[in-house]
């Protein structure tokens, strides 16, 4: 054996020292991690695709579910998500500029751009919190189940509740009390639980019966049928007095879940339950990545401030966290397309 080994020409063989990929160990390991993380996200998004293709009814439309802006109300389809996407792209750009500054050993540049990246990350997290809150609370009038079993989206203006006058004591609220705080919230809860028997009189969770004093009555403009029943067909539009009457029937039937506001783990007003489940899981998992990205960026930022990487002679640490940060942006590009657009 030894004699054979001696005859081997070692000049073209790999003698250690150099990397066949001409890259450092840390960077390659970061890439390997990102590939495995990408596979996780692909699995989630493709599972979402599977459910959508298998589903036989009408899947909710991004433009209709996500159409609100902070302070401005409804009627701005997709604008908010577009702003979130833009925000993430910009913070990706500041990150790549930090990496570029690092390659020139420009410590001030790295500090500035990395700081802006962190700010961008916080803005994105805040936006996502607002989006979730909006998704969970839902629209003003919710979605109703009509008498024939069909499901309808309700368009119009929601009521404004001045206060609740307690007519009969419950375990918490006593007769004669006037509840102003969260009045609309209690009213919507009672609607969902089927605790409204005649318009304007509700039973609260503690058993108290209350009269609802409206500052402004609800105005029903249109019912859009989203799931067919025995009478109404998918896509039908019911307008005017008929719509108001059907809405009243559904909300005063005394049955729970005839009307649904927003979304939780059991039901949601937007469409099939898998829609809300995937929304919570995919955007939540992505949001968690953004959060950990911000934390990692902050740790590295302190390293930059202390001059750790400058003394080391290279800013590869910034480059490696940059890879992770860009990856978060990359995932969002796909979530944006397959959750909001398609």
């Amino acid at each position: 054996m030894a004699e054979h080994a001696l005859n081997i020409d070692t000049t073209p063989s790999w003698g250690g020292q150099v990397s066949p990929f001409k890259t450092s160990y840390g960077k390659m390991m970061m890439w390997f991690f990102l590939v495995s993380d990408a596979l996780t996200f692909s699995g989630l998004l493709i599972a979402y695709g599977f459910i959508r293709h298998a589903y036989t009814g009408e899947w909710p439309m991004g433009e209709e579910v996500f159409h609100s802006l902070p302070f401005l109300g409804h009627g701005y389809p997709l604008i908010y998500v577009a702003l979130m996407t833009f925000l993430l792209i910009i913070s990706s750009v500041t990150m790549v500029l930090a990496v570029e500054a690092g390659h020139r050993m420009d410590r001030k540049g790295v500090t500035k751009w990395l700081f802006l990246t962190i700010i961008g990350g916080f803005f994105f997290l805040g936006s996502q919190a607002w989006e979730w809150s909006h998704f969970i609370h839902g629209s003003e009038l919710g979605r109703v189940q009509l008498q024939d079993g069909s499901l309808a989206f309700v368009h119009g203006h929601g009521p404004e509740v001045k206060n609740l006058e307690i007519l009969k004591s419950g375990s918490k609220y006593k007769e004669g009390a006037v509840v102003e705080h969260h009045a609309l919230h209690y009213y919507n809860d009672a609607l969902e639980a089927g605790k409204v028997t005649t318009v304007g009189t509700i039973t609260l969770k503690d058993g108290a019966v209350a009269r609802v004093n409206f500052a402004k009555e609800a105005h029903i403009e249109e019912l859009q049928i989203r799931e067919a029943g025995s009478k109404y067909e998918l896509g039908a539009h019911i307008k005017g007095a008929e719509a108001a009457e059907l809405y009243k029937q559904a909300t005063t039937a005394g049955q729970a879940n005839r009307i649904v506001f927003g979304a939780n783990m059991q039901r949601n007003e937007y469409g099939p339950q898998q829609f809300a489940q995937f929304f919570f899981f995919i955007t939540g998992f992505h949001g968690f990545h953004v959060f950990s990205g911000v934390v990692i960026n902050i740790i590295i930022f302190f390293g930059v401030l202390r001059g750790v990487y400058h003394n080391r002679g290279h800013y590869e640490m910034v480059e490696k966290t940059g890879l992770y940060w860009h990856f978060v942006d990359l995932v969002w590009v796909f979530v944006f397309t397959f959750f909001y657009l398609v």
Partner: protein
Amino acid sequence: MERDDVIEYSLEAHHSEEHGKKIRKKIYFVTVLLSLITAVEVGVGIVFPKHYVAEFTWETIKWGYIVLTLIKAGYIVLVFMHLGDEKLELRRLILFPYMIFALYLTYILLFEGLQVHHIWMK
């Protein structure tokens, strides 16, 4: 901290001021491009809502979205993540196994999803 047992590739990544200018120019170009693509996607989404356009139009739009998304993803990976500047072998090592798996899973699950759909419709 120079080491003699391994080559420190991290130290070779430095570039000059002029080269930096060129790189930044490319970064700004990609920024504008990505923003424009996003704006176009959202614009199309607002003007042509899914339920209000013909099925063929929607199919075209959908594939348009997918192509635009892949273009965006390509720019992020190749320029922002510098994979375009890495050695060809590394680029392939990262991209090929992932693509094979993702394409296969997409194909098999969407195909399966459609079959389930047909059975449920009966």
